[in-house]
């Protein structure tokens, strides 16, 4: 390999590090002050690109000068900053004190809303941006041609870092931000109005995301998928750098930029995996990231109220369970559509139940539970389509694949807690997604695989429904039994105080690891059943949106309820199945519903049921 080639490779790594840093710095500042991990940060980035591809060409009509180009970019950043203000005032302000799981979900609701609004405003077609006047040429470095705009980007990152440093150290606003990053309650007790500080922070954070997006327009067309692809990378940068640390984000962006630039030469297919492996390695050695520090106990978000005291079903509960079971068995008396929806609900109920086994019972907020669902589906599907095995062994393999991958990822996950844990589960889910997506020869890539059909005896819709019912009900009864057993109680003890549980001799890590593995196995089983019910598998089975669906189900069902997640899955899926075909804007609808749920319904359906009964009694 040529010298000059390596140099150019390093330079392009620096350019992408710069872009990544600009975005991630905003995310980390917002997290530092508000303690909210803002999924919508990727939406701000996307909005920055869309505003810029609209505004900049219009400005360049007047005069094709570099100044107008950059003025357009900066104005786009400011416009996006104002969107950030809007989000803070209308939503974030109401959820600073709610558990972090709900915050993540609410900001994901904003992601869905923005996706639909962007489609409405700009349409589904990618919009290419103008190239920057004065920076359209290439520069020769040794004998390699390197785009001038990329060279310019290399300097943007350090410039933004320097400006942020000045802001943070030379202005009162910046000093307050740094103080609030450490202890926002104390800042309030000294007379600082946090609302103003938070609004200002969101403006800054969103504007940085918007700047990042606007600067991309000469390189990539504005497209409606930009938000989720960038948010995972930005998460990884902030987690590796240490959440809340701007210099840490810079360092992490540099590392990732170089890793990607050179990783692509060695392992062209698995650059994404490399990035996530780096993250896992850093978190194992430094659980708070490179330059982060342990969260102060003060002002820390609390876990949602989980399952407290599981009791045997009372008479009303038994009746309800019996009616539900009868309903499941009687579904084939109705039409085929009801059977299809019923089968799906059963599968999703098992997946949701296994997630709440982690979240409600174990306090382990997994943001990537779909990974184990999807890996179970792929495990079963690949055995059938590639190895030619029949359904039965494939269905046995599904929980093994789900459990084994949960054991592998869980080994790292259970070392962390709180928001870092959630981020790591998300990262692992994205690794799994990336592998499935990129390994086209085996998995079929984006298209997935078809021909995952059940054995002949279970081929009819009704027979498969009964098979699914038998398997899922048995698995749910088993998991419920585990929740009631001493193992479940130990997990609850570790959830409520890991330290105290440790002190009385509980091996907290081991219990959590086993719990994580068990939940992964159950999700894998659900995934396997799902694959045969559809006849096909594709990467969306591992995607963030499905993980969020699962979380919405348990939230809807009530995290503190043992059986509520089943009702949550049924309600969520029935509503989604009913509304999705009726409207083109189901994302908008779903996003608004998630936000409404977080704001008005934080204890879920089971909570509403309990308080209704409490009132009646």
């Amino acid at each position, binding site marked *: 390999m040529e010298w000059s080639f390596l140099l150019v490779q390093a330079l392009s790594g620096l350019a992408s590090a710069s872009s990544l840093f600009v975005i991630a710095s905003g995310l980390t500042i917002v997290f530092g002050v508000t303690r909210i991990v803002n999924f919508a940060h990727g939406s701000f980035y996307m909005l920055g690109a869309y505003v810029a591809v609209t505004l900049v060409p219009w400005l360049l009509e007047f005069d094709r000068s570099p100044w107008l180009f950059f003025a357009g970019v900066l104005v786009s950043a400011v416009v996006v900053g104002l969107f950030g203000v809007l989000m803070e005032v209308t939503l974030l302000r109401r959820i600073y004190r709610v558990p972090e799981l709900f915050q993540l979900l609410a900001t994901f609701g904003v992601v869905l809303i923005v996706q639909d609004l962007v489609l409405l405003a700009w349409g589904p077609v990618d919009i290419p941006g103008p190239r920057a006047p004065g920076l359209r040429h290439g520069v020769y470095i040794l004998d390699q041609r390197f785009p001038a705009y990329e060279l310019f980007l290399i300097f943007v990152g350090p410039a933004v870092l320097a400006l942020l440093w000045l802001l943070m*150290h030379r202005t*009162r606003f910046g*000093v*307050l931000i*740094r*103080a609030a*990053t*450490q*202890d926002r*309650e*104390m*800042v*309030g*007790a*000294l*007379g*600082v*109005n*946090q609302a103003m500080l938070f609004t200002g922070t969101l403006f800054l954070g969103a504007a940085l995301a918007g700047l990042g997006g606007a600067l991309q327009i000469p390189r990539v067309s504005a497209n409606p998928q930009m938000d989720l692809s960038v948010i995972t990378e930005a998460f990884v940068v902030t987690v590796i750098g240490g959440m809340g640390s701007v210099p840490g984000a810079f360092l992490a962006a540099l590392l990732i930029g170089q890793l990607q630039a050179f990783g692509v030469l060695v392992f062209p297919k698995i650059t994404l995996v490399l990035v996530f492996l780096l993250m896992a390695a850093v978190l194992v050695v430094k659980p708070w990231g490179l330059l982060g520090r342990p969260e102060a106990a*003060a002002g820390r978000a609390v876990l949602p109220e989980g399952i407290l005291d599981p009791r045997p079903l009372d008479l009303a509960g038994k009746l309800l369970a019996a009616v539900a079971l009868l309903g499941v068995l009687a579904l084939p008396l109705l039409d085929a559509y009801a059977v299809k929806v019923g089968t799906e609900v059963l599968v999703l109920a098992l997946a949701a139940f296994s997630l709440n086994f982690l979240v409600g019972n174990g306090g382990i907020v997994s943001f990537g539970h779909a990974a184990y669902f999807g890996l179970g589906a792929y495990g079963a599907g690949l055995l059938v389509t590639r190895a030619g095995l029949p359904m039965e062994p494939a269905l046995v393999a599904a929980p093994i694949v789900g459990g084994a991958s949960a054991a592998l990822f869980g080994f790292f996950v259970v070392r962390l807690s709180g928001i870092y844990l959630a981020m790591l589960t998300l990262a692992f889910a994205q690794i799994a997604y990336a592998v499935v997506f990129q390994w086209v020869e085996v998995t079929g890539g984006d298209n997935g695989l078809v021909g995952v059909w059940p054995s002949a005896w279970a081929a009819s819709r009704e027979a498969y429904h009964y098979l699914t019912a038998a398997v899922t009900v048995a698995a749910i009864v088993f998991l419920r039994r585990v929740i009631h057993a001493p193992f479940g109680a130990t997990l609850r003890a570790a959830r409520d105080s890991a330290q105290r549980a440790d002190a009385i001799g509980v091996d907290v890590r081991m219990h959590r690891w086993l719990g994580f593995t068990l939940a992964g196995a159950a999700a894998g089983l659900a995934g396997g059943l799902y694959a045969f019910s559809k006849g096909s598998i594709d990467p969306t089975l591992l995607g963030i949106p499905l993980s969020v669906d699962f979380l919405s189900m348990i939230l809807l069902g009530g995290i503190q309820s043992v059986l509520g997640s089943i009702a949550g899955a049924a309600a969520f899926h029935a509503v989604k199945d009913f509304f999705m075909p009726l409207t083109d804007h189901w994302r908008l609808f779903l996003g608004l519903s998630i936000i409404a749920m977080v704001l008005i319904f934080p204890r879920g359906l089971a909570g509403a049921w309990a308080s209704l009964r409490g009132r009646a009694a």
Partner: protein
Amino acid sequence: MADPVLQVAGLRAGYGPAEVLFGVELHLARGEVAALMGRNGAGKSTTLKAIMGLLPPRGGSVRFAGQEIAGQAPYRIARLGLGYVPEDRRIFTDLTVTENLEVGRRAAPPGRAPWTPERLFEFFPNLAEMRHRRAGAMSGGEQQMLTIARSLMGNPEAVLLDEPSEGLAPVIVEQMAEAVLRMKAEGIAVLVSEQNLDFAGAVADRALILEKGSVRWQGSIATLEADEDVRRAHLTV
């Protein structure tokens, strides 16, 4: 007695299912130093947090400078002129001494000379020498000085001081006592929670003894120092 600067009546507060304060009654006169005493767990820190709004009161009334402040946000209470120095100091360790003071800065009420870093550095000469040092790199006593200085930057009329002598070397405790007396000389009322009778005796005019979440005894500090029965009943372990 003239209109008190702080008047607390029937204050109730707690954490989750645990009730800690059961109707605390107390007042603080302008320019007075009062010691809030009591055993561990009696509710001293909780009382101060509930007054400051850091722990929302569950009942009762807190009047400060003529306004009802129970249930208000801490920043509003601070802006009315009530300073707060927490037990665990909670200085901003990543910030320099000067920056810590900047976070506490608020405009002074009209007609009063505002506290400035320069004036505070005269007040606490130790801090002057390390104004650009990261607060996390200071000793515990220096950090305690900084929290007091930081609260003074808000130009308070009264300050809630939570266990200032805890865990400090005797020579530092003496400096703390001096600081409280100088605050008093500046006309600032101080409600100091304290377990150390020597410290309370050195700074306070009056003592209030909390036990099981309500005030069980109050009187002059001299009486408390003289009366061993009261001390045995409420303070000694």
